[in-house]
């Protein structure tokens, strides 16, 4: 049968549509509200999950996570120059503005220190856990530097009881053992 082999029939329209990305909906179409009960994000999530599932390579994600974690750890150090300049400029007098700035300066690092684990929670996997320890230490050091800046400022403002005069009120007068009574003309 000299029946010539016919080229395969073109794929059906639904196959083409399935394989090609959906055209961008027109502006008018995008403004059409979703029908009730339809959630557009659900589709995306599924897409992402599919993508992740397809791109999931454990070694790569760990490197990426460490990289991200380092960025977070180094992050506070970027505030140091700015804070230092601000503290220097604000003067050592006791005013509401400088007091508030100093309070903010203390609040940030202390909250950061308390939330250290929370800050790195999303990078914490069993494989990265040991490596993350060093990152956390660096992060805490950075926060401590910021805290030190605050303490330096408070000291400059004279609020730290570091001098003898600050403890003068707790020192008591020397009482002599003998007492003289005077009878002058």
């Amino acid at each position, binding site marked *: 049968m000299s029946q010539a082999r016919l080229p395969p029939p073109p794929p059906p329209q639904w196959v083409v549509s399935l394989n090609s990305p959906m055209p961008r909906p027109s502006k008018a179409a995008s403004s059409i509200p979703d029908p009730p009960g339809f959630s557009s994000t659900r589709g995306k999530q599924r897409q992402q999950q599919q993508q992740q599932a397809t791109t999931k390579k454990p070694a790569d994600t760990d490197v990426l996570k460490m990289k991200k974690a380092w960025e977070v750890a180094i992050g506070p150090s970027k505030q140091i120059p700015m804070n230092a300049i601000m503290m220097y400029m604000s003067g050592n007098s006791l005013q509401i503005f400088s007091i508030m700035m100093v309070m903010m300066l203390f609040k940030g690092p202390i909250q950061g220190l308390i939330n250290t684990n929370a800050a790195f929670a999303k990078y914490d996997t069993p494989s990265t856990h040991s490596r993350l320890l060093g990152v956390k230490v660096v992060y805490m050091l950075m926060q401590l530097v910021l805290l030190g800046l605050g303490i330096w400022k408070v000291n400059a403002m*004279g609020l730290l009881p570091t001098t*003898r005069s600050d403890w003068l009120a707790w020192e008591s007068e*020397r009482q*002599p053992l003998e007492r003289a009574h*005077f009878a002058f003309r």
Partner: protein
Amino acid sequence: MRLQAALFLACLSPAAAIYPDEINHVDFHHALLGAPSADSTFFLKPSPSSNASLLYTLSDKLIVGAVNPRDGALVWRQNVSRSANSPANAGLLRGLDGNDALVGAAGSYISSWSAQDGKLGWENWVSGGVVADLELLELEDATASSGLRDTVAVINSEGTGIVKRLNGNNGRTVWEYKDASGDVPFQVSSSSTEIFYVSLQSALLKGFKIKVTALDPLSGQVTRQQILNSEADVGTPESVIYVGANSASPIIVWTDKAQKTLKVNVIGTKEVTSIAIDNTSGSDIRQITVHAPHKLNALPHFLVHYATETGAWAEVCHVDLMSGKVTKVYQLPYLPGQSAVAASVIDANVYFTRITDSEALVVSSASHGILGRWDLQKPSSDSALHSVSEVVAKGKSVAVRSALFRKHGDWQLIRNGQVEWTRHEGLIDAVAATWAESAVQEDLAHELEVEGHETVIGAYLHRVKRHARDLQYLPDWLKDLPKRILSSILTDEVSNLDSFGVAKPVLVATKNGRVYALDTGNHGAVSWGIQAVETSNWAVKAILASPGAATIYSDDGSSVTVDVSTGEIIARVEPSSSKLLAIAVLGAQDGSKLATVGVNADGSPATSFADEDGFLVTTSADGRVLGWIAKDNKIPVWEFVPPSGEKLVKATARPAHDPVASIGKVLGNRSVLYKYLNPNMALVTAVNEETHTASFYLLDGVSGKVLHATTQAGVDSTQPIASAMSENWFAYSFFGDVSGRESSAKGYQLVISELYESPSPTTVVLSTPPAFMIPEPISHMAVTQTRQGITTRLLLCTLPSSNSIVGIPRPVLDPRRPVDRDPTAAEAEEGLFRYAPYLDFDGKWYLSHTRDVAGIKDVLSSPTLLESTSLIFAYGSDIFGTRATPSQAFDILGKNFSKLQLVLTVVALGAGVAVLAPMTRRKQVNALWKI
């Protein structure tokens, strides 16, 4: 630290300033004159245009003063004793109605003062003599210049009598008459045509003849002379009772020695009238006084007043101008008790006012009918010494006001039987004073003490019982509450501070044995005065106040304990034999269990004292400082004798109550300079009169060691040298002259030194700046005391030349002020500012502000329950009391605090809430339903 500095600076700038509305509110002043003398006190109309008269006097302290008879306020006064260089026993003061000049004399000093404002007209010093008598010429004559009347003065110049007529305007001598006969110059009197110079001529055997020399007023020439044979009666000049002054018919009155007949001579005549003294009282006559009008145009009537120990009567006599005869007209009856009589003149009529213990009455000199009689509202037991009166006739009735001086030093004005005011002139002799504690505090203190010593449960029950007992006062308290609330809202006074110990009474002991209680909460009004001791020279050495009572110790070892609230004498200790130089008060530190130890003239304690760890530091009469221990009162533990040639003039120690709030001083670099706080320090001042140096020794009272000594060169030891000590500093002032290299400044100087601990325990670091030059001398120094010593201290300086009291804030006198450069930032932070050698007294520092606080000898300071406030009391001649707030009244609500505004604001807010709350609620409910 920075905050402290800022607060401190904020406090410093207006510190100690007295606001106008505080005058007469926080302070009081008794401007005193002294006891008015009997013959130099009078009512006088100072200006011919005005009918108002003032009360003028020259006191025994030689102070000329004018007092407003309406309220007893002092109009002006002048101290004549400053100018009277020779000691004078009594001064003389003369004035004339409508003549705006008073002429006063004391010793060799004659001066004329404007009657209205007390300005000096002229002054004169009589060379080599003492003014014996003074008269103003009432009648103008041809030589009299227009203006003020001329004065005739009699001067006793070493036995020679000199009569001088002095021009009233400038005090220059118009003429002079010298009596070289050796008679005792006695008095001067004048009639309309002649001046009579009365002298006493020694009779051959004994006694004096009265010699009257008539002088021509124009030229001073002698016109005639008369000698009265009085030598049998007149033994001494005091025997002449009266020489009538300036009446139309001046008289001389004396009695015979037995006081049976009164002898009267109309001056200028030869005749002596004898009047039998009709003594029916049965006791001897103690005193005879003659009261006659002083005006030229008054009727020639006079009154003779006889006083015995128990009663008095008076006789009115008339002088017949034609014949010179004196006749007795009528008698004011004998009345038991004391009485004082005064003569006054309206036009030509003469009135006599007699004030007895229970009534005041006015009679005319012409007849015995009583024109006015008033019962005294408050009969006084204090006998009247003398009085002056002013009578006003209103149709048929009369009104009278009399200024009565009583024996115990009260000068009273009695108007129609009512006491209008009383001036307590006896306070001028104050020798000691102290703050008293009232008995109410004693009860509470006692209760608290009981509670402190019981067990916890016992104390609790005791307290519950005490509060239950206090409930009996609740109804009264509740009844009083609305009034208190209303008054506290409406009155100017925001809070009554009396309960904070601001209104403590002050006890003042005077030289003549009297004790007064002054209520400092009530303008220093005298709440009581008693004669504690019958003496004329009460040397009070110490007054110790215990709650409810006060004990006054005298130098003879005697003591009197008086009740503070009533003035009753509770206890009396009779004098011991030896004279005491001082009285030491032991155990004053905690205020309880006070004991006293007398100190003999040689500095030794009169008795051994029982205070185990106590030492006693005394000074002896010969200028040594001695230290004693409790067991031994024979041999001192140590002795400090100033170097030879130096004489100890003053010794001071820290006050008994001298709390220190901070034991160190914070420097700009935040390091601490520790104060050297030794409660046993004493500052001894010694002067060398030959080398003109003054040395100041700082001694340790226990060991007798000299901690520090400094010598100032070129010191005038005749000028006052004052010193004071407190905390870790001492201050002194003196008059320094230019001498060598040490001092290059001449003037009054004030030096202040601070003592600090040094690293090694044996030495003291001293901070002494160059002295401050001050504009006037300081006669006395004291330091304000507050409850805890937190408030800035004031150095209270008495300025005798400007009659004021100044409180210099301590920070101004900081010895660490940088010299010849501006302070560094650190120093500025400490509150130091550049040293300026000249310390001008800031007007804000004057605690006495415009008041003329004269003759202050001692200034006391006392803490109150308010830390900000210190009480100050000054005495010596005047009495002055005030409250000082050196760091402003930081613990008291200010006067601009409006309670009414506060209450209204709260009420308005409450009303707003009450109105808005339902509206909001309705709105919220409606909002819920509107879906």
